[in-house]
Structures are given as C-alpha cells and as structure tokens.
C-alpha cells in the first residue's frame, strides 16, 4: 500500500456532487453579511443603521458597540515572539479606526444573503479619512503611521547571523549588491472562507463548521472568546475547497462573530464569504523588498551574504513573524554560505493582513538566493549550474547545521539530502548541457529562448505535534481520525494507506476523518507541508499500537505466542499460515469484555462465553481495539528540490511563454506518488501564477484595484505549462516513516526559475516578480542604468 498510486477515497463523493462544503450546509440558517470599510485608513465618525431597518427579512445589525466581554477585545496575537514588540491585532468589528479597505465595521444578519447584502448597503458609516500608508517603502519612511502608537510602522525588527558576514564580504575577491522586489499575491482558494454556527440553548453547547485549516485551534479560540467550557464547543472542518495557507489564520473576525450572533439570536447563522470579500478581507502574502550584498571567490563560492528585508505585514499582525522568519532562515537553501547575516523589518501598511500563503516566505527566500547565484555566475562568466554545484552541501555532510533558528524556535539543522544528484537529474531531465544548441537553432528562426533553474530546501513537518486515533470496530472496519484538516491533499487516502500497511488490512476497509474535534480534539493544523509527516507518523504509531494489542488479544484466543503472529488479509494468524487465525473483527470483539450481548458477535465477548483465567482481571489495559498515537519531532525535516524551465519571449509583444518545466523533487519516502505529483503540479501552477500573472494592485489610496477574478489573473489551463517530474528519495532519519513534506514544494522556486530563464532569453537583469509582458517591454526599452 505504502508507495503505491492508490486512487483517492475522497473522489467518488466529490465527483458526484456529494461533497459537503461549508455553504452546502445549513440551508435554513440565517445569513450574515458585513459592512466593510471603503477606506484604507479612516476614523469612524458615526454609524447610522436606520436606513437598513426597513429591509424585509432583516434580523440584526451589530457594530463594535454591541460586542461584549472578550468578543469586544482585540483578536488574539496567535504566534507571539520576543522580537514582536509592537504586535497589533484588529477588533472583530472596527472600533473607532479602520486600517484597510475591507475591514469589517458592522455585521448584518438576515433571512438570506440577498437581503443581508441589501441591508448592509443601507447602513451608513461616517468616515473621517486619515492618510494611508501603502507600500513597504512608504511604511519604512515612517512619515505616516498605521497605528498611532507604533513609531516607524515597525512591528518587529530581527537579525540572525552565522559568522561575520559583513567582514567576509569586505574581504571577498568579488562583491555584488542589488535590490529585489516581490509583489503581493494571495492563496485564493476557489472556495472562500465560511462559518456556520448552531447554538443549542437547551444543552448550552455550540457546534461550528468552518472552512478552516485548523478546527482544533478555532475551537479553543472560540471557547475562550465566547466564555464557553471547551467540552461544550465542537468545531468541524467539512470538505474545504482549497486553503493554501489563508485558512490557517484564525479566529477570523467572522469566525468569532457568526457563532456569537448564533448564541445571541438562538438561531443558526451562516456566512459564506464571497469573492470580493475574499480579496479585501482575508489575507495576502509575498510582498518584500530585499537588499542583497554578497562576496564570493573565483569559483563562485559564497563567502559572505548579507540580506536586508523589508516585509509588508499589512494592517495587523495576528499571525506573528512566521513569514519573514521563514524567509530569513530559508535563504541559504542547499548551500554552504561562508557567513550569513539577515535582518528583516516587518512593517505595517494600510492593506489586508499578511499570513502564510503556500511556500510561506520561502519563494521570496529562494528568489533572493537564486537570483544571487545567477548574478555570481554572470559576473564570473560561469555556468549557472556550476556555481550552484560549487556551493552545495555534500551528501556526507548531513546532518548539516546552518547555525540559525528556524520558525519552530529550533536550530536549523538539515536531516538529509543529496543535492548534487538532484542537480544531475535535473540537468538531464531538461537537457541543460544541450540547451545552447537549442537556443541557437531557435534564434536562427527568429525565436528567443532561455533556460533557467532554481534550487531550494524546504523545512517541512514542523511541530509541535499531531495525533492520530485508530479504531478497529467489531465489523472489522478501521476508523482513523486525526485533528488536522484537509483541503484537497488526499489525506483520507494517504492516511488509509499508512494504516492499511501497518495493520495488514485492505485500504477499502479504512476510513479517515480529519478536522472534526468531535473525533480528535488535539491538533495543530494543516500548514507547512506537515500533514504527512506529523499526522502520518502519529497515525502509524497508533496503528502499530493497535497491531500489538490485536496480536496480544489474538494470542490469548489462539493460545499462541504473540511473537509468532502476524496480521494479513484482515485476520490475525500464525505467521505464514493463512486460515489459521481469527478475523480482526473478532479480535475487536474480544478486546472489549462485555456483560451484555446485543448481537451474535458481541456474545463472544460476554463473561460466560470464553473461559478466562479466574485470577486475572477481565480487562488489561483499555477496552476496545483502538489506540491513540502522537508524534512530536525534535525538529523539522528538510525536503529539497530543483526546477528548471525553458521559456520563449516574443520579440515583438514581450509575451512570455513557458515551453518546458522540469522538477526534481525529494520529499523522502513517497506514500502515494500520484498524490505527490498532483501537489507538485498544483504548486508549480501557483508558482507560474505568482511569477507571471498574479499580484495585488493597490493604488496610493490603499484601494485594491483588482479585487475580482477579471483582474486578478489566476491562470487558466491555457497559461500553465506541462510539468515533467523526477523523484529522488532520501528518507528522513527523523521520523518512523522516513517521510518529508511535499505540499508546498512546487511553488517555492518558480519565480526564481522563471526569472533565471527570462534573464537568459533577454540578457537583461530580472529583479522583480511578477513580470508581465508590459514590464518586460519596458525593461527592454529602459534607458541603460
């Protein structure tokens, strides 16, 4: 089972329209809509709801004044950090000041969404506009402030250094200095956020469905905010139509307000975010300006690297410093950097908040490092692949300590990898060495081609932990649950494969539930390519425990030594002797000593059925054939990969087409290669999108000019290249399954790779992403610097 392209268990329901996404639930619930700020920065002078009161079907309108207790306080700062000295978070509904277009100001509840929007449109809010801060450099100038009490708009400034980078650069035979710009983009799942709450007044309990990447933490946050005992709150992530990071942020204002309103009104309330709201009221990522200084020797070996990053964190910083920390620590990638210094400044702007989007700071890091590698190669007249090769950590140097502190607060120590081999495979796959002829032949036809490459190392599977529960019921079926959530990664299939492998049962007999706190209440969430590593290992550990228990119980029934037994084909039997054992179903029955028989199977476990030793207690350990397992790693495991692309740029129109895209990928042992490939395809597509199409276009007033799919250019099939993949497996020594994460890999180096390829085609330095045909046109015609 493990390692096979098993077809997905989730597909039949999703293919026949029987998936249950957030807005598929709660048809009779009241609908919420929000009055949102049209200003990037303004003081609220008054809110007049009288015009909305006549709307037929209106149930309630709430403003900050109506909130009470912890709901009226600012939302939590989710990931505190000692350097985050000026952390500011929003109120669930704006109090006095709005700080970005889209910030919720009032909540409307009505019979349906049409009416709720009608009423929201009739609420009149008076604003006294304040000067907006847009763009990270304006923020850094500090002339205008997003938060009056945060001087210079600086949320945090943080430095890490391994060696004396500045001295190393001074002493190096060659030095270069340049600036890189990366624009904002966003996860943009096709399903927006959504919350549906049911308050049971008799039971004083709350059930919330949320389109979230972390139901367990939403549950704890809601219990705290709403003052409910934790056991009285259940949170369920139903089928989720994509997350890519944005749904790890929580609790959203709406996520608190919808349940709060449901409790107040004693009615079911639902909010399904629409596309425009998603653009202006969820979260974005990526925007950074990077100043790079590098010193290197004649072979292109980096002796010193000094990177200064201005990071745009938006109007508030509820998710803390995770993104810039990841950028700063993943810059070194697969390379041994002589000495490295990185400093970031995380700055407030009057724009939507910034939280992780697939890659979470890594695409920016790789853009920085790989642009640097290409610059070095160009400066020395060396082959770009050769310069990378010269800097690689060698396979015999693992574990390799980069001398930095990673996003989990743990030392940045790589567990395993084989970078030279990956590069060799990549060059072969894309035809690196033969490309000059290809390029020359194309040039003879008047076509402009270029090739580029990029390498990355990705810390995956961060802690603190995940858990899994495996339960064999008396019908022989295996029920698995884990607290983290799924947004299309195929967890139901992958985790079933792991359990099928461990328990020797057919994969069809295993069902998996994720993200339902009724089934598993302890979890962290799905992000940072951690599900397979964390929950996968936790579930494997639980399954191993179930297996041991099954062997023990069966050994008693068979009067055999458990060490002679195995589980295969759904029965526990003497190793290698089919038909000699008891079905797993029966073992499950026997594992739970009973007094009452409700069916024939159960009768086998009752007190007079089996002669038990009168001197032993009927139950040793816990009843039932089930176990819980937890996996908590010492530190992250480090996946790696290398991508290459061939692009064609149109000489006349400056259109950019990706002709070929090749990926060599190492995520340790593959559980399901089909699913891993799918993750890579999707990641590359998002990478191409971020490199060539997507950006958040804010004007100087802080208005998002492209808050629709008409103008935010998410690519269609016609814009995405075919991806050729090859896999390398260097198992992780850190976890029982030897796996590393794969969820984000595809996206990470794409901007760097395409910049490299366009630069090769055009012979022009590419220093910003995304790059549109208009941008390329202007680069071509820019006066020489």
């Amino acid at each position, binding site marked *: 089972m493990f390692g096979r*392209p098993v077809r*997905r268990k989730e*597909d*039949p329901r*999703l*293919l*026949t*329209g*029987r*998936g*249950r*996404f957030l*807005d*598929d639930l709660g*048809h009779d619930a009241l609908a919420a809509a929000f009055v949102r700020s049209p200003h990037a920065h303004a003081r609220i002078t008054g809110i007049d709801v009288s015009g909305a009161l006549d709307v037929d079907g209106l149930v309630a309108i709430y403003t900050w004044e109506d909130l009470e207790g912890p709901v009226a306080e600012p939302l939590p700062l989710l990931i505190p950090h000692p350097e985050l000295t000026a952390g500011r978070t929003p109120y669930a509904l704006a109090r006095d000041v709005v700080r970005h277009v889209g910030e919720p100001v009032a909540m409307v509840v009505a019979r*349906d*969404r*049409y009416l709720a*929007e*009608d009423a929201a*449109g009739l609420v009149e809010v008076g604003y006294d506009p304040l000067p907006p801060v847009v763009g990270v450099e304006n923020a850094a100038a500090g002339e205008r402030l997003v938060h009056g009490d945060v001087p210079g708009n600086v949320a945090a400034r943080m430095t890490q250094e391994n060696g004396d980078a500045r001295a190393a650069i001074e002493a190096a035979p060659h030095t270069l200095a340049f600036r890189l710009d990366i624009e904002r983009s966003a996860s*943009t*799942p*096709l*399903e927006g956020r959504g919350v549906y709450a049911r308050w049971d007044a008799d039971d004083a309990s709350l059930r919330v469905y949320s389109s979230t990447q972390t139901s367990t933490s939403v549950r704890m946050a809601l219990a705290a905010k709403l003052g409910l005992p934790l056991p009285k709150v259940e949170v369920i992530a139903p089928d989720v*139509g*994509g997350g890519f990071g944005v749904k790890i942020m929580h609790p959203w204002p709406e996520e608190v307000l919808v349940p709060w309103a449901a409790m107040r009104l004693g009615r079911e309330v639902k909010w399904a975010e*629409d*596309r*425009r709201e998603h653009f202006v009221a969820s979260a974005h990522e990526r925007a950074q300006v990077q100043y790079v200084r590098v010193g290197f020797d004649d072979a292109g070996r980096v002796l010193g690297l000094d990177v200064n990053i201005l990071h745009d964190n938006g109007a508030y910083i509820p998710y803390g410093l995770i993104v810039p920390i990841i950028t700063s620590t993943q810059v070194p990638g697969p390379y041994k950097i002589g000495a490295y210094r990185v400093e970031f400044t995380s700055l407030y702007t009057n724009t939507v908040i910034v939280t992780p989007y697939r890659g979470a700071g890594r695409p920016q890091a790789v853009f920085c490092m790989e642009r640097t590698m290409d610059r070095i190669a160009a400066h020395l007249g060396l082959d770009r692949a050769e310069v990378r090769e010269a800097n690689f950590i060698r396979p015999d140097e693992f574990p390799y300590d980069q001398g930095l502190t990673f996003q989990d607060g743990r030392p940045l120590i790589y567990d395993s990898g084989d970078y030279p081999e990956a590069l060799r495979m990549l060059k072969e796959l894309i035809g690196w060495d033969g490309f000059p002829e290809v390029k020359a032949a194309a040039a003879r036809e008047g076509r402009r081609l270029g090739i580029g490459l990029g390498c990355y190392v990705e810390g995956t599977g961060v802690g603190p932990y995940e858990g899994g529960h495996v339960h064999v019921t008396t019908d022989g079926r295996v029920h698995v649950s884990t607290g983290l959530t799924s*947004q*299309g*990664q195929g967890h139901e299939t992958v985790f079933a494969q792991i359990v099928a492998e461990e328990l020797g049962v057919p994969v069809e007999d295993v069902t998996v539930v994720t993200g339902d706190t009724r089934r598993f209440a302890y979890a962290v969430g799905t992000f940072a390519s951690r599900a397979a590593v964390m929950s996968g290992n936790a579930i494997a550990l639980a399954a191993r425990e179930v297996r041991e228990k099954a062997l023990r119980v069966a050994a008693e029934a068979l009067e055999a030594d458990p060490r002679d037994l195995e589980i295969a084909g759904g029965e526990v039997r003497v190793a290698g002797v089919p038909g000699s054992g008891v079905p797993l179903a029966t073992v499950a029955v026997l594992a739970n000593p009973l007094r009452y028989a409700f069916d024939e199977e159960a009768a086998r476990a009752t007190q007079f059925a089996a002669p038990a030793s009168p001197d032993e207690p009927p139950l040793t350990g816990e009843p039932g054939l089930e176990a819980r397992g937890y996996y908590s790693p010492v530190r992250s495991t480090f996946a790696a990969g290398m991508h290459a692309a061939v692009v064609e740029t149109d000489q*006349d*129109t400056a259109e950019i087409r990706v002709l070929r895209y090749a990926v060599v990928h190492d995520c340790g042992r593959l559980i399901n290669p*089909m699913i891993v490939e*799918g993750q*890579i*395809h*999707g990641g590359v*597509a998002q990478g191409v999108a971020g490199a060539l*199409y997507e950006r958040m276009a804010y004007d100087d007033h802080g208005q998002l*000019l492209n808050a*629709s*799919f*008409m*103008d935010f*250019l*998410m690519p*269609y*099939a*016609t*814009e995405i290249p*075919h*991806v050729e993949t090859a896999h390398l497996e260097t198992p992780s020594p850190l976890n029982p399954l030897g796996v590393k994460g794969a969820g984000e890999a595809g996206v990470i180096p794409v901007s760097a790779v395409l910049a490299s390829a366009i630069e090769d085609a055009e012979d022009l330095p590419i220093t910003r992403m995304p790059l*549109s*045909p*208009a941008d390329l*046109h*202007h680069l071509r015609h820019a006066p020489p610097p």
Partner: protein
Amino acid sequence: MKPPPFVYHAPATLDEALETLAEAGPEGKILAGGQSLIPLLNMRLAAPAHIVDINRVAGLDTLRLDGGVTAGPLVRHSRAERDPGVHALQPLLRQALRLVAHPVIRNRGTLAGSVAHADPAAEIPAVLVLLDGTVELVRRGGRRTVAAADFFTGPLESSAEPGELVNSVFFPALRPGTGTAFEEIARRHGDFALAGVAARVTLDPGGHVTHAAVTCVGVGPVPIRLDVTEYGAAAPAGEPDWRHAARAVQAAIAPETDIHATADYRRHLTAVLTGRALRAATTRARAHPAVPPPTPTSRRPGSAPPAAGPEAALLRPAEGPPAPPAGAGGTLPHAEVSLHAGSEGAGPGAVAPGGTGEGHSVVVEVNGVVRGARVPGRRLLSDFLRHDLRLTGTHVGCEHGVCGCCTVLLDGEPVRSCLTLAVTVTGRAITTVEGLADGEEMSPVQRAFAECHALQCGFCTPGFLCTATALLRDNPRPTEEEVLEGVSGNLCRCTGYQNILRAVRRAAELMAGEG
C-alpha cells in the same frame, strides 16, 4: 455578491417589451445573455429598478444572411461562431468571436448585447465598425438605423436611448478580393484584450491594395477605425509593406495606462498587431480573389457545408457559399435561417413567470426530474439550484463568470449558473453534476477524473465535469488543442490542470470503448 432588488419583467412580445422599456425609461435595463449585465448586478455596480428579460420574446433569435449577417437580439455568440453560413459570408465574425471570452460565456452572450454594452475592449463592436455595419434600434412607436461609426460614443456608452432596444445588428458581407483578420493580445486566453486590431484589406485582381482599414480595441474610449489604404496602395502588387501603416496607427491612438499595461506598451502592441492583422488579411484577400463568383444559389442551413475554420475557408474557398458581388446588396440571394435552438420559452413544464412582482414560479427539469420553487426575480440560477432545490454539487467561486465552478448544462449547453437568473430559464432542462452519473455508475468523464487524479479539493470539479461532458458529446475525439480550448474557461487552483487535460482525453478513450 447578489443582485440588488429589481422588478423583473418577462415580456412575451417585442411590443410588450418596448412598452415596458418605455415606461421604465432610464430605470430599465434589457437582459439578453446576461454575461455583462449580471456580473455588474452581482457586484452591485448597477442597480436598475426594472429588468426587462427579452429571452422569452419570440422571434428575436433570427439570423439573416442577406448581403451580410443580420443578427437579432438573441443570436448568441456561439451560434454565430459555428454557423457555416455566417462564416462564409463574413469570416471576420468567427475570427473575432473566438477571441470573445470563453466558449461557455459565448453560449449565452449575444452579438446585440456585445454591441449594446459598448465595451471599448470588446471585439464585436470593433468588427461592426470596421465593416461599416449598422445597428437597428426600436422603441415604442419608432425605429431608426444608426451607422456603427455613430453608435459608439464612449466607454460603455452608445447612442441608444433609454427605451430603445437593439433590434438587429448588420455586419455587411465580405467583398470579393477582401481578406480580414483579428489579432489581439490578452493576458490570459479569453480575457479582454490589452490591445487588439481588426483588419480588412481589399485587393484588385492585379493584387494591388484598393482598400485597407483597421479598427483598434482597448486603446481608446470607443473602437478606433483608421483607413490605411494609402500605405498599401503605394506598394507594388502582392508586396504591401504594412510597417508604415503600423507606425501611423500607433501615432493616431491615445491609450490609457491601467494595472495590466501601460499606455506605451498598448501603443506598441497596437503597432505590432496592426502589422500582423494587415499581413494576415492581405494573405486571405489573395485567397479570396475579386473574380466573379459562380452563380449564387439560395441555401438553407440544413444544406450547409460542414463548419470550416478560417484556414479551411482559405484553402477551399469554393466550398463556402458564394460571396455576394460588391455593392450589389439589393440583388443578393436571400437565405433566412430558421431557428430552433436558443428560444427560451420551450421545454418541459414551461411556466410563464409570475408577472412583475416578487415571487416568480420557476419550474425546471433538473437531471430528468421536474422541480420548482417560487423565487424572487433576482435569484441566481446557482442559488436556486443550491439553496432552493438543495442540489449543492454546483459550486460558486466568484459570482462574476470567471471561475466556471458554477457551470451547468442548460438544454445540454454549458452555461454559468451564476450569470443566469433562475426565472429566465423556467421551463428548460438543466443537468448538474448530480445528474452526470447513471445511478451509482459514474460517467466516463467522472471515472477518468478519478483515474487521472484530476481533482484535489474538488471545488472546481463539478464545473469541469459539466464542461467536459458537453465537449465530448459534441466532439468525441478532440485533439489536445480542442481539449485545452474546451476547458480553458474553468479555473482550478489545486491541480495545475495537467491531470484535468489528461482526464478529458482519457474520458474520450473510455467513451470510445477503448478503456
């Protein structure tokens, strides 16, 4: 993103429609295909007090081929694009229509709606202007014909007055010795163009340019037409050098900068596209020589030759119906196309919408079962299916027509349910993802999607399945390009599309029994 309230009218006759429009005045909006109007309503950028839905008016879907193409208000893009008679008479229409949005949008959008909407980046207005077409406007008690050049007055502005309805749009036929081309650059396939150029070149039998003109889109408030005959006429026969024309066009336009392109870049593109379009049009003109055509014969659509692409037309000009002689409009053969498809009133259980107030009875056959509910006029078909009929397999990802998650089959044709009012389609048959399987047996398309791992979160999947199902029904052995074009109007954020394309090809194999 839901439409604001409005009074919904579904007149049954043109007179009734004009009467209602006259009464509504500036507060009335005509609803045709809805592919521009409904996004504006959903985003609440438009809030007309009255919507006059003309989809039920009989006889508005006439397509006349008579000295040109005369399209009534309900002639959909897709029909004009596919019709071989239209293509033979005026190939520029198909050349342009293939650049209008995506196939699914074209299944609803109308030629008249495109013209009335007067988007300066739209293709059809440019075609009309280039061809010296006309727009016939009717209102209560009046009728006038406006030359294309006078019709477009500004961005989304035309000389149509409140109360007036575009009753037909006339695209004159291609003249002998004439070739046309439409070239544009869009950021994504199917997007509105950053810049686009329609060109028309006429050669005399000796190969000299006697007339050449271009119309530019996306670079001004209206389609900009420029006569470039002088640049071609100066050149020797067969060798017109259009570079000067391109430069002249570039100098004559004043585009604006927006988030997608700078004015400079647009100007540059327009020059490049002018050259490309004029060259392509010249080549086609040569293949469509100004020699007297064979004797014209009247033709009904049933006897039409198979649809031919522009290339095919170019290679086999004799197969299409003859081009009318230049300037001989009045004596041309008359071929009136009778119409079955596209009329909204027919179908099982047709029920007239409940007048003008709130609460219209909508009855549709969904997946073979007749279902109904009373809903407000503004209820979107997507919400009607999902929330009134509780068929939640159809998803909603944008509510402005771009993502394709909401695609369902309307009488077998894929359409965006978020850009369709439920009440518009009362009486018609709808297939949703829930209706694709045969009982518990998944359809070949569904099976192929599972086999090829063509879905991850599954949110976009219903739209892809419906689109692919219709594609393979109409074209059981599509080429790779046809598959790509077929699904090019659906977004997926998870899969990178590679496995979706593979799955559609695999489904074709399964349907052909090769699985």
